[in-house]
């Protein structure tokens, strides 16, 4: 007869625990798949938002770098100076070195004045 009173402790322990060994939950697999899909969507959203953030950061950086800096202003000034016609003229005549030796550094006379003075 299957009387629990007559079973040994170990047998009853095993029997009791084995009754709780397997607890099937209806619809559990569907719940897991739904949770996994939700987690996957969250990961996609996170990935795209980080891409968008990086793109925005690049855009801001481009805008910032495109505005004139002190260095670029200096370059533009030097370019203007280089296009100075009197300097070009002096170079053409080959007198630039002599003139630079003769002229004071602070108040450099124009090439025309120098030529006039040497002609007179």
């Amino acid at each position, binding site marked *: 007869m299957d009387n*629990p009173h007559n079973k*040994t402790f170990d047998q009853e322990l095993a029997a009791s625990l084995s009754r*709780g*060994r397997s607890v099937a939950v209806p619809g559990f*697999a569907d719940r*897991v798949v739904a949770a*996994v899909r939700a*987690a996957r969507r969250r990961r996609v959203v996170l990935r795209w938002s980080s891409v968008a953030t990086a793109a925005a950061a690049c855009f801001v950086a481009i805008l910032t770098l495109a505005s004139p800096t002190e260095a670029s202003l200096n370059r533009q000034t030097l370019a203007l100076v280089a296009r100075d016609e009197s300097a070009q003229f002096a170079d053409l005549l080959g007198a630039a070195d002599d003139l630079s030796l003769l002229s004071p550094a602070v108040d450099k006379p124009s090439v025309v004045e120098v030529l006039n003075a040497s002609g007179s």
Partner: protein
Amino acid sequence: MLPDDDDDKRLMTLVAEGDDDALRLLVHRHHARLVGYLRGEVGSQATAEELAMEVFIRLHRAAARWRPEAKLSTYLIHIAHNLVLNEWRRRGRKPTTALEFAAEPGDTSQQSARRVAELDEAFQRAIAQLPPEQRTAILLVVQQELPYEDIAEIMGVPVSSVKTWIHRARSRLRELLKDFYGNQ
């Protein structure tokens, strides 16, 4: 038809490739035992289901890295055991309440069914009072019928520790249930 172990490996490969139907099959195959084990550990059906859900989400996340060195069922229990440890840490205490246990009457007589339910409840209450290591060890060996080696791997301890915990758990349970068994 493939044996479960081989089929588990095949399904895990598919899960790694993003096949949700393969995941559904795996969950369907393994969730009942997992929930049973977790319910024995935490003493609550709702918490056991929550933790089992987390186990499968972690399994899915790790699918691409998973190597079939151990049986998938053992790997799942391993993840579940780690989650149980986290759960205890989070709660700051060990479960001391008995399970919400509904016995499945196997005997035909009403009295016998009542006796089985009573005994089951007493066992669950006693198991809930065991130290965590002893409870895990006794659940894995008696309830889940895992070999000592697997239990040692899951718990990250030597086999000798597992044997000691199981021996102590049996002694402690016998002591807690002396009203039922006297001093046999």
